[in-house]
């Protein structure tokens, strides 16, 4: 066993952390959030320059050929910085799906564009859509960054299609955008076939592991900021961090954080496991631990910041909202707990 990151991984982490610290401060992020699109093409180009859009793309297609561990390090940093760009959808999940489910031609055309920041692809689960005579119909609600795409991919009936829906874009409380996508006899072009469902499940799992890493990045920052607040905020003639009840609350927050960190690493490790049951079991366990941690840390960070935690001015309230959203995303805690129970019983 080895719990250390190698030098290459550390360098990547440093690069991304420096980018967030220097070019993606809280004010910058809020200014981007206030624009109609709610995210920035300039930032996207900067991410391409950093190389992080190429992370999940193999070298023959212009990528770096990294995996979930490196993605996790990037997501840690983007989490703390509350990045509002469609990184998870466009640079993690979509390439993971394309690599596994699209035709060679499609890969050759699109993966280099994604790596270079020239195209954003959003992948969709077609289960709730109907496909008749090569045309898709149906509505997908609240798709994260659903309107930010240059190309939409739909996994449906063991094949992969591209199609262009109508959309209704809107901002969410956590600073991200989502869209309702409407397919209405929309022509669908087949761009891959075979093992699509498995590929989609793995890509989705890679996304879930990345989401877990984002949450850990936010929780790390939240616990640190709350600790710092307790050291500086004075009441009754001493820092409030001297009060034992608050100390114990912070200890509980740290317990949640460390358990979440462990499961985030395990999820990164197992999200590409070919054993379906084991992969899903670990991912569900990770989402449960991280969901519980999100809830506990978010609520208590606001509580311990008192009134200040309720203001829009402090980043802690924005971390709170993003953590709340993460708990509800990719299946909520209850649903993963029940999936785990079922898988664990079958095991």
């Amino acid at each position, binding site marked *: 066993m080895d719990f250390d990151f190698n030098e290459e991984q550390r360098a990547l982490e440093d690069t991304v952390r420096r980018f967030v610290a220097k070019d993606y401060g809280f004010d910058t992020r809020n200014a981007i959030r206030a624009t109609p699109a709610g995210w920035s093409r300039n930032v996207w180009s900067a991410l391409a320059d950093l190389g992080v859009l190429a992370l999940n793309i193999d070298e023959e297609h212009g990528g770096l050929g990294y995996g979930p561990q490196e993605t996790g390090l990037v997501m840690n940093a983007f989490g703390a910085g509350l990045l509002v760009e469609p990184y998870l959808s466009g640079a993690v999940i979509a390439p993971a799906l394309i690599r596994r489910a699209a035709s060679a031609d499609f890969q050759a055309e699109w993966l280099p564009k994604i790596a270079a920041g020239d195209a954003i692809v959003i992948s969709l689960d077609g289960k709730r859509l109907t496909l008749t005579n090569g045309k898709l119909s149906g509505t997908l*609600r*609240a798709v994260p960054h659903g309107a930010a795409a240059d190309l939409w991919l739909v996994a449906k009936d063991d094949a992969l299609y591209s199609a262009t829906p109508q959309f209704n874009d*809107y901002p969410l409380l956590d600073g991200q955008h*989502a869209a309702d996508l409407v397919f209405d006899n929309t022509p669908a072009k087949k761009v891959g076939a075979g093992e699509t469902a498995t590929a989609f499940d793995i890509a989705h799992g890679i996304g879930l592991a990345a989401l877990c890493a984002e949450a850990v990045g936010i929780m790390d920052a939240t616990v640190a900021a709350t600790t710092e607040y307790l050291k500086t905020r004075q009441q*009754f003639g001493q820092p409030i961090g001297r009060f034992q009840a608050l100390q114990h609350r912070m200890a509980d927050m740290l317990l949640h954080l460390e358990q979440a960190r462990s499961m985030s690493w395990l999820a990164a490790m197992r999200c590409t496991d070919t054993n379906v049951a084991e992969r899903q079991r670990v991912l569900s366990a990770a989402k449960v631990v991280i969901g519980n941690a999100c809830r506990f840390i978010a609520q208590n960070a606001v*509580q311990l910041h008192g009134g200040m*935690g309720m203001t829009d001015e402090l980043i802690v309230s924005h971390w709170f*909202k993003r953590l*709340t959203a993460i708990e509800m995303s990719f299946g909520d805690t209850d649903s993963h707990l029940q999936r785990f129970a079922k898988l664990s019983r079958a095991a």
Partner: protein
Amino acid sequence: MDLNFTAEENAFREEVRAFVRAKLPEGIRQKVMSSQHLSKDEHVLWQRTLHEKGWGGVGWPKEFGGPGWTPSQLYIFEEECAAWGAPRLISFGLKMIAPVLMAFGSPAQQQRYLPRIMAAEEWWCQGYSEPGSGSDLASLKTRAVRDGSHYIVNGQKTWNTLGQYADWIFCLVRTDPEAKPQRGISFLLIDMKTPGITVRPIITLDGAHEVNEIWFEDVKVPVENLVGEENKGWTYAKFLLGHERTNIAGIGIAKREMTRLKRVAGAAGKLDDPLFAARVAQVEIDLMALEITNLRVLSAEGSKKGPGPEASILKIKGTEIQQSIAELLMQASGMASFQIADTANRLGANYCNQRKLSIFGGSNEIQKNIIAQMILGL
């Protein structure tokens, strides 16, 4: 022991129910039922509607123009109002400054201010907390220096709720900086139109403007606006905090929101999920228990003056329950609740906003200190 309401109380409930259903405008009701913030005009309209019925002074004794209700009647009134979606009463005038003026104000102050509170002619706000003085309120620093017939006030207040609408603010100010913290505080009434007052909005995490910071820069306040005696303000402040805790459990609102939760969750199919259904049931059960606990406290109060430390039990459980319901409402609709533009439901924003309940009005941590020390004697 008899846990049922009397026939008279049940008749009173029918009267309140009929009145609220007849008089509450549907537009206001819809906003309340979907967790939207109300405008000043809407609040004022409802208070004036109550006033016309003779119910403007909710919680007040008859001698000051109130309806003179028993604690049970007050409870029934608040429950029926909440159930049908009437606005919360704006407490700063009615339930905070009014009881203080009745107990400690001069006859002139009582005559000047109380009728206008009842008639919603003047809106009050609260000047207690400061940036450096939250839980440790007695450390407040806003200074008032006597200068002839006036006090000159300098300082800053914060977490001022709805002060953007206010005509008056009641303020705790330090008049003797040499004395022990609690001994040098006075209680002043300040006209919000006085020069030198600046109100700055604080936007909260749900994106709403509900609270403010207020700056005082050489604000001249006539000495007749002092309540009671100089440097005795801490006594009045604590009296006020005690009264603020009437109806602190928010049973009526919680019951209304529980009904909403069961409707929303049922429609979303979430009650078919045994874990979600169990969590809803657990909160509903806790609420059933708290309702009885609340009535026990009310009943005990009949004989005493004002709520005792038992109110801390109601504050903690009441806010926990309201927060749990808000959370379950959000979870029942999932990420759809996070749409900023969804003003018709606001379930995500409401969850965020309700986090304040365990912080404001004496944080739940402070309430546990009170329970441990005042009730258990630790």
